[in-house]
């Protein structure tokens, strides 16, 4: 059994139990209105990283590294990465996606999110630049 299956029967039973429970939960979800969109979002959740985010950041990173000395690139990719991460997680406020709903429920409007994201990004780039300058100075003087 082990030779053909590739693991112990406990491995198989644990997975069958998990898949059965997950299938139960998915069947419950499929009874909800808009279940097609739930399936789409589940599939999209895998694709978003593997087919969009990962190829995008890997390509950008390889371009940034090309022909440059090791260590140089971190001063760029860390602040750029954090800025991109803020955009990814707060895309709805930065791009005013939920503003109409927000105004209806809260009576207030959203202002300045894109501007604050740009300001914080600029601060990150300036801080990384200052750090690079300070380190290269102290490196050349010693």
């Amino acid at each position: 059994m082990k030779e053909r299956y590739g693991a112990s029967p406990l491995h198989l039973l644990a997975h069958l139990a998990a898949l059965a429970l997950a299938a139960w939960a998915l069947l419950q979800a499929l009874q909800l209105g808009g279940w097609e969109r739930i399936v789409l979002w589940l599939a999209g959740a895998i694709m978003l990283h593997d087919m969009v985010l990962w190829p995008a950041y890997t390509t950008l990173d390889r371009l940034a590294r090309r022909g440059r000395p090791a260590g140089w690139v971190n001063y760029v990719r860390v602040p750029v990465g954090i800025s991109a991460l803020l955009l990814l997680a707060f895309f709805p406020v930065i791009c005013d996606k939920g503003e109409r709903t927000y105004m209806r429920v809260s009576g207030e409007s959203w202002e300045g999110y894109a501007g604050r994201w740009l300001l914080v990004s600029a601060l990150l780039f300036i801080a990384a630049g200052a750090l690079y300058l300070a380190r290269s100075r102290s490196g050349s003087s010693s």
Partner: protein
Amino acid sequence: MRTPPGPFRPGFWKSPLRGPWMTAVLGSLLLVLLAVVAVTGFLSHAAYQPDLGRNALVDPDVPFTTFFDWPTGPSWLYALTQGLHVNAGLVAIPVLLAKLWSVIPRLFQWPPARTPADGIERAAIALLVASTGFLSATGVANMQYWYVFHFDFVKAHYYAAVVFVVALAVHLVVKLPVALRAYRSRGVLTPLRAGIAETRPEPDGDTVAVAPDPPTISRRGLLAAVGGGSLALLVANAGQSVGGPLRGVAFLAPRRAGGFPVNKTAAGAKVTDAMVGAGYRLVLRGGPSEIMLTLDDLRALPQATHTLTLGCVEGWSTRQQWTGVPLAELARRAGVDEPAELLVGSLQPAGVLRQATLARGQVADARSLLVLRAGGEELTLDHGYPARIIVPGLPGVHNTKWVGSLEFRT
């Protein structure tokens, strides 16, 4: 069958940082964060007390609902659990991305399943990745009022969480020994001592590059960058969860405006001036006979003042001084001793949250009020004038506004 080109070939992978130890560290950090998110998520489900009245937002027959009464203290309990849920969820995003990066060569392994065991494991991992991404994406969109998904968020988020928990449990059973082996052979923290110059690929493991590039960042550097990303997301949002002056620091939080935030305006709830005018009556039911009280009657009853925190499911909170009639006092006026439940009805004409059922302990708590004044001022219409509920530790939306009826049940 021939191995397809590109990422399916082992030589494609160049990072010298990938390996079982790196994955174990990222996986351990992610496990702690996602455990906090999952536990607080199910606690939020329990805090809505789905077994009472029509409180259930997910199917009321769903198993593993609540087997304890949600406590009434401390008053910031729900603000804490839900603040943890939303903020730990945000903090987990960079760790999740790094974890996926560390194992992505496995996505392109050839053949796709080496054994049946490998195949079933990968099916479970697909469910884990799908549910984690689904929960993150819908959670992030929902907290920012972007209802782009067009399905019932609460139900879908709940069932996806069940998929996530079972898929994570089986993943742990399989991978915990792999992680422990990596920690034992390489030391839990030893690889963090190496700077860029001393960073070497891990000696073995199926995600280790066969022809790695020279390192451009150390392992501790990678973890610091991930931590920096997590910190940025935390600072961007956490102020709305803590409230007070920190709210302004939360530079991307949806609820960063100061003052006393309105969850839903009267206009949004379709409550009009006519509904709360001179004709307003509060109906007390459950006793020998129905009792009608005008706003002046309510003002003439004994009042109490308490400073309590109101926490929203979206992860923001506000602390206010509330003045009103204790619910226990209203139960006595209605002629019901120690009610087992209280069904609160709103004047709001529609919506699932136009009513909420409170448990015995919540009605009995001396700090549970039918609020007439907040911060020493009469309630504004948007905050629930003429009367709203405040119960310590209760999820925000169950503190019903524009209360029209109280039905005490024994």
